[in-house]
Structures are given as C-alpha cells and as structure tokens.
C-alpha cells in the first residue's frame, strides 16, 4: 500500500511483476513444502550447482541454454500387461499453459536406462505414446535417440521437443504428454511381473522443459488482448503463428 501520488503514474499492469510471479508459482504459506525427494531433486540440485554459485550468481560459463528449467514428474503410471520380455508403463506428464513471457526452447525426457534389481537388471528406454502403435514393434536396444549430456552415466536424456505439441487430455481434462517407459528383462531371467506392477516410475522418469524469458519483447510490443488470451490457453499455437 503506497500513498505517494507519483506511484500512481506507473503503468497499471503488471504493477509488481515479481510479486505477481511469486504469487503464481509459490505454494501458499500454510501449505507445506511438497515432498519431493530422491532423484528428481538431486538432479535439479546438480543442474543448479552447474549453473550458479553458492550465492546464487549465475555462472558465466553455464551451458544450460535457458533462463528457466522446469522438472515435471508424471502424474501417475499405468503398468501394461507384459509382452514377452518387455514391461511397459504409460506415463502422463501434466503440461500446464505457459505464461506468454516464456518461450519453450527445449524439451527432454530423462530416465534411467538400467534398473538394477537384486538378481537381475532391466534395460529401459522411453518413447512417445502413439495411439495406434503396431503391437509387434519393439526396439531391440534400449537407448533410442539420446544425445550426449552432462548426466551421470546411469541417466539418459532424450529430446522430445516435437512431441510436446501433441494434443492429449487425461480423464480429468488436463493436457498431458504421454510417454511409454519400456524395460526389457534378459531372456531366461526370473519373471518380474509382480515387481513391475508395484514399481513407481515417478522417480526414474521425468520431463525437463527449458524456457527463455522473452519479457523484454513483450514489454516493447504488447500482444493484442484477443491473442494474449489465446496464447495463455495454448502456447504451442503461438509458436506456430510466430513462425
């Protein structure tokens, strides 16, 4: 609350962009910090340490290539019946509407390509979910189209930028990116059906969305009201129009 008349001359909206942003992103004070432990948090801590020093200053030689990175965990996993030596889970990642000021520049999925068990191990990979995929087709090796990254050897990062624009909604009406997490057990090894159904992939597969801030462009040339509302509903359409 500021009563100084000079403040009233500032542009009306957004008056306090940082505070507005914090209100959108921050959980309520009464809400406890969501319990996110394990691999996703560890991964993001490593990403942070590579990109910023202990005081929070962004490193000059950072290779992150974006000003914002969001790690998204799957909403839930659905295990499919085993097909031969293949175990398959369908994973839905929520894709919330993006703010206009941020442009998606890269999307990857990160997963463990080896799941080590007590007496065996599974070779895993991720592929985009396709509605009518041929049931007979399964790749013979696990890695897919991964590209080199700074990840520990146990993790693979795969570019899925072209699949993020797919239109898919789950039963609750949320827009999702659906992926298949597929693991193969060695021939002749113990059947792991029970173990697989009880396994949560929530910590072994996650989505990374890289955004760049385009706020300066937005300030100089604001979008017409109609287009702004349109883009808030679906940022991918904006990207197509810009092209």
């Amino acid at each position, binding site marked *: 609350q500021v009563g100084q008349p000079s403040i009233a001359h500032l542009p009306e909206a957004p008056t306090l962009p940082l505070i507005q942003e914090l209100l959108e*992103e921050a*959980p309520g004070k009464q809400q406890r910090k969501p319990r996110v432990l394990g691999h996703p948090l560890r991964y993001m801590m490593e990403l942070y340490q590579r990109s910023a020093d202990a005081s929070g200053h962004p490193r000059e030689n950072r290779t992150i290539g974006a000003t914002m*990175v*969001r790690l998204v965990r799957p909403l839930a996993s659905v295990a499919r019946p085993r097909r031969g030596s293949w175990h398959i889970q369908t994973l839905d990642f929520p894709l919330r509407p993006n703010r206009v000021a941020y442009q998606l520049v890269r999307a990857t999925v990160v997963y463990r390509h080896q799941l080590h068990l007590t007496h065996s191990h599974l070779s895993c990979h991720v592929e985009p979910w396709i509605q009518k995929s041929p049931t007979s087709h399964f790749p013979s090796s696990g890695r897919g189209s991964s590209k080199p990254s700074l990840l520990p050897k146990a993790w693979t990062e795969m570019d899925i930028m072209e699949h993020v624009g797919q239109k898919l909604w789950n039963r609750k009406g949320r827009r999702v990116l659906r992926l298949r997490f597929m693991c193969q057990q060695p021939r002749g090894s113990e059947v792991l059906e029970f173990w697989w159904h009880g396994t949560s992939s929530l910590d072994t597969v996650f989505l990374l969305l890289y955004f760049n801030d385009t706020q300066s462009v937005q300030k100089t040339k604001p979008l017409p009201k109609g287009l702004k509302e349109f883009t808030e509903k679906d940022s991918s359409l904006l990207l197509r129009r810009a092209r």
Partner: protein
Amino acid sequence: QAGSIASEVPGPSREHDGPESNQCSLHPFQVSFQQLGWDHWIIAPNLYSPNYCKGVCPRVLHYGLNSPNHAIIQNLVNELVDQSVPQPSCVPYKYVPISILLIEANGSILYKEYEGMIAQSCTCR
C-alpha cells in the same frame, strides 16, 4: 558555455555533502529466505544478498557515479534556481540476476534466473 556554468557551481565541500562515509555508495546486505517468508518453497541459494544504496548525493556529480545529464541539471536547478526541486537520489545503477531453485505447489521443481535482483553499483539520479 560549460566553463561558465561550472564556475557558478561551488566546489564540493564537506559541509554541504557530509562526511565521505555518508556519500552515496553500495552497502552489502544479506537476508535469508526465511526472513522474507519464502523458505517453505525456495531450496537454493540459502542466503540472498540484494544489497542497497544509501548516502548523500554530492553537489558535483563525478564520473564515477554514472549520473545522467538530467541529474546534473537537477542539481544545478536545486542549487541555483529553486531549492524546492530536490537533489538527485542515491539509487542502484547496475543489477545482476540471481538463480533460484524452488519447488512449486504441484511438486514440480523449477530452476529460474530472476533479473535485477542484486544491486551491484549505485548512482545519483
């Protein structure tokens, strides 16, 4: 004639500008996210150093302060024309960003660089 204008301006005096320790300058300042009430969602960094600018702006604004021409004129107006026009204020000149790691309400983890979060130098304007 810049020379004649300058000759009208009295030289810097400690009497007017105050002691040097009171001059406009950057003051280091550190705060924890707990003090700001944000510790329930910010994971890193632990401490935040926004710093601040404080002090008296001198009547003759030297190059080191990076003051715009307007500030120099306003100083002259205050000195020579109308004292109800205030002297320039001591404010941040350059800022640097800060990287923050936070947990969102839905459990997503966010790395984000926020611009203009740390004052790095000060100016009189």
